[in-house]
């Protein structure tokens, strides 16, 4: 019986290991309890300061709670590859734009590979990719390869920039990973201001300095667009409002100013994007709206319209430092920026050559301000104003410092759980654990007596192992994970049920308890193995193809099932061996 001592050692070892890896979790819990016990904030602060290392260590090694239990945001963001590829194309024309727009629609509805969609669309039109991308001598597959690399680079860069933004905003333990070739998964536990977080994440932060067109150009262009849009359209217009022309939404006042009322903003900007309107623009020009509405004398809110050059004079790549502050009057928040040496010399040249003209500061396609150049600026400083709050200025500082995203990034999936619901989930999870455990334990003892007791001991060890593996591998426990544990408790005793039923049969056939025990274990083993392998396979596939919350369920189910192979077989057998050797078992032990 060499095996005997070996098994006993193994059981003790596993139990100790499981307990040991749960020590930090226990510590974290008890430290938290002590913290709660303090009445004054000063006491608790002192406590935290005195036990800082201990708390930090416990928090790092303890069992982590998932976003749903702790409250937080789970976001999936998608890099707009269509936009990225459009940036890379070198002689875009209307046909190209039309094809890409169509591909964009397809890409939004499916999860298909964008490069495949693009290639297919161009092949259908019988156009080689090289007409628009890279070198004319490249074959389609070479270009696909290059675009793929471009997309992969963009994804990595986007992830780094988003990480920068989140780090600078200050979130404890964010998790940022990429998935596939265009998705970024972001997990942010315990966010207090989710609105701000969303705003912070979604902007491209593409900063441009663009010259305004000469005086009078804005008025002339708007006139032309108004006439073009008022003309009865050949297609038979479906939109009556559009036929009233642009001037029903856009007011021109003064010599060189135009604005849109806040309520008409969407409508006007849609109108200005129509082909009839775009064709009336002077070459290398673009109409942009202000980022922020101004309050007019009559109390209405107006967005200014600017006619700017399409080609920027300078872009945000030269910005090295940004700082949110209050302006000279001390009330208006603004962001001061400084540039690198290349940007500084360019900026000096641009401002020097355009004194008296206006330069628009454009962030993500919206004009923040368009100051008149008073003099040459030699030191590479510039400023963004027209910002509403200091908070927004701070966020701008963050995104400018982190740099611009290579392409726009959109939120395509979001799961946010508020802290109060998280607390509810924890309560619900604990209740399920306690009741599920009690139900199984009582049932087993009721049905199998001593045998049931042994199975219950094994069950405790099983749950301990699941929790300790989660803590040891830094995985987090979520509500579906708890559901997995509860369900596993019901299924893990299956191995014992198989064995005990077998033992009962052997006892009924007249065997002694010792031989019934060994026959029962031996004969039930192949059933147990087969049934566990199939359950494990299903759980594993669930883990592979599922996402987030479902993976949590699959993980606990897998660990629990695998652990029950050990606990339900080795542990209970060892218990019986011990009991038999002490003459504590009889043929009545299994009910």
């Amino acid at each position, binding site marked *: 019986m060499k095996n005997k001592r070996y098994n006993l050692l193994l059981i003790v070892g596993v139990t100790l290991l499981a307990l040991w890896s749960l020590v930090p979790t226990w510590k974290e819990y008890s430290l938290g309890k002590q913290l709660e016990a303090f009445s004054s904030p000063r006491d608790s602060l002192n406590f935290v300061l005195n036990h800082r290392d201990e708390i930090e260590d416990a928090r790092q090694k303890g069992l982590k709670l998932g976003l749903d239990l702790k409250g937080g945001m789970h976001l999936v963001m998608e890099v707009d590859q269509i936009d990225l590829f459009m940036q890379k194309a070198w002689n875009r024309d209307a046909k190209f734009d039309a094809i890409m727009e169509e591909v964009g629609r397809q890409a939004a509805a499916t999860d298909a590979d964008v490069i495949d969609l693009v290639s297919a669309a161009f092949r259908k039109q019988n156009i080689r990719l090289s007409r628009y991308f890279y070198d004319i001598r490249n074959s389609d597959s070479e270009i696909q390869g290059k675009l793929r690399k471009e997309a992969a680079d963009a994804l990595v860069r986007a992830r780094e920039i988003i990480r920068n933004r989140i780090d600078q905003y200050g979130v404890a333990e964010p998790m940022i990973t990429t998935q596939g070739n265009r998705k970024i998964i972001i997990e942010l536990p315990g966010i207090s201001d*989710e609105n701000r977080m969303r705003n912070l994440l979604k902007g491209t932060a593409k900063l441009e300095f663009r010259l305004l067109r000469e005086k009078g150009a804005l008025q002339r262009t708007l006139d032309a667009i108004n006439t073009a849009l008022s003309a009865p359209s050949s297609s038979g217009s479906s939109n009556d409002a559009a036929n009233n022309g642009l001037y029903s939404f856009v007011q021109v006042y003064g010599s060189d100013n135009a604005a849109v009322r806040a309520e008409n903003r969407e409508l006007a900007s849609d109108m200005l994007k129509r082909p009839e309107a775009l064709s009336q623009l002077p070459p290398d020009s673009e109409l942009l709206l202000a980022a922020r509405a101004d309050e007019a004398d009559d109390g209405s809110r107006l967005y200014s319209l600017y006619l700017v050059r399409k080609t920027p004079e300078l872009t945000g790549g030269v910005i090295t430092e940004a700082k949110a502050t209050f302006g000279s009057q001390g009330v208006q928040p603004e962001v001061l920026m400084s540039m690198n040496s290349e940007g500084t010399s360019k900026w000096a040249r641009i401002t020097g050559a355009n004194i008296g003209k206006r330069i628009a500061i454009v962030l993500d396609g919206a004009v923040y301000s368009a100051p008149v150049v008073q003099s040459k600026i030699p030191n590479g400083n510039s400023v963004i104003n027209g910002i509403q709050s200091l908070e927004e200025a701070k966020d701008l500082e963050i995104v400018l410092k982190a740099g611009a995203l290579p392409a726009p990034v*959109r939120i395509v999936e979001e799961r946010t759980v508020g802290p109060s619901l998280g607390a509810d989930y924890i309560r619900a999870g604990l209740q399920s654990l306690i009741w599920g455990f009690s*139900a199984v334990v009582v049932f087993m003892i009721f049905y199998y007596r001593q045998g049931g007791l042994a199975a219950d001991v094994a069950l405790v060890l099983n749950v301990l192992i699941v929790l300790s593996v989660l803590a040891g591998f830094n995985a987090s426990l979520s*509500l579906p994970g708890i559901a997995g544990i509860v369900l596993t408790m019901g*299924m893990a005793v299956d191995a014992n049920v198989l064995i005990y039923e077998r033992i009962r*049969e052997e006892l009924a056939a007249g065997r002694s308890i010792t031989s019934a025990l060994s026959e029962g274990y031996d004969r039930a083993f192949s059933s147990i193995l087969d049934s566990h392998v*199939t359950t494990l396979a*299903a759980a594993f596939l669930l883990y592979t193809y599922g996402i987030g919350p479902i993976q949590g369920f699959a993980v606990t189910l897998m660990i629990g099932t695998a652990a029950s192979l050990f606990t339900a077989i080795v542990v209970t057998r060892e218990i019986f061996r011990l009991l038999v050797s002490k003459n504590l078992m009889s043929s009545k032990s299994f009910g």
Partner: protein
Amino acid sequence: MRIFSNTSIDFLGRRKIAYAISLLLLLTGLVSLAVRGLNYGIDFRGGSEVVLRFEQDVPVGELRSVMRDAGVSGTIKQYGMDRSFLLSTVFNGDTNELKSLISGALNSHLKGNPFEIVRIDAVGPSIASDLKWSAFKAMGAALLAILIYVGIRFELKFAAAGVVAIFHDVLIVLGLFSLLGGVFEVMPLEMDQSIIAAFLTIAGYSITDTVVVYDRIRENIRNRKPSEYEQIFNESMNRTLSRTIITSCTTLLTVLVLFIFAGPAIRAFAFAVFAGILVGTYSSVFVAAPLAFEWIKRSKAPVKLRGSQKA
């Protein structure tokens, strides 16, 4: 205590009745699937869901009219917690906009009753199609893996009958979801990711039950003549019946606990698993083993189960 000891039920003799019951259940489900379809959750159709919790109770009708006046499209239902409502609407990439629309409407119309947005889920259309595809892949891969494993451990006919039983179980639960979808206010029974998890759990459970019966058949069938197969099958099923019922009981107990205590997010999952375990227990005895029996009876050749020769 013993409930099912020394039974000698003629399972195979009653298999025609069992087939009829199974077919009836399957057909009902399939008709419902064709007529009523399934209630897809946002995981698979895309969309946004917001759970609102109020300090005092609000009649759902009042909430609906407030939201309609504010221009928030979509449906509002009671959520399975106190004073809570679930608003589901189309996906738009800007959650902040949706939130401010909701907050604006509620703050002006239900002033004395503060509320909290406790949960937001938003799933874009591309993600939804991705998730749907993943669900299919997971189910397909699970069935294939089970077919191969059981095929290797026993024999292909047994494996195929086991997989048919899984299909049977999952389809009946799916039919149940279609039939009861939207019937209960607190439990809409929508198809989402957690239901896929439930299906895979059911598949694992169903084959576990089946394999235990098979295992006993393998043990008993050694060196016996094909004419005795019917008796062997019946005997094996009777011998494992107790285990089958007891394990179902413990598992059903825990699933019931989940259903009652784990809250609305888990309720549909628990419901699916509960139904699946009932059907799965039934199918291991009345579908999988009888089908395997029919097949080997027709193939005439004596069955050679792997592993039955040794020991």
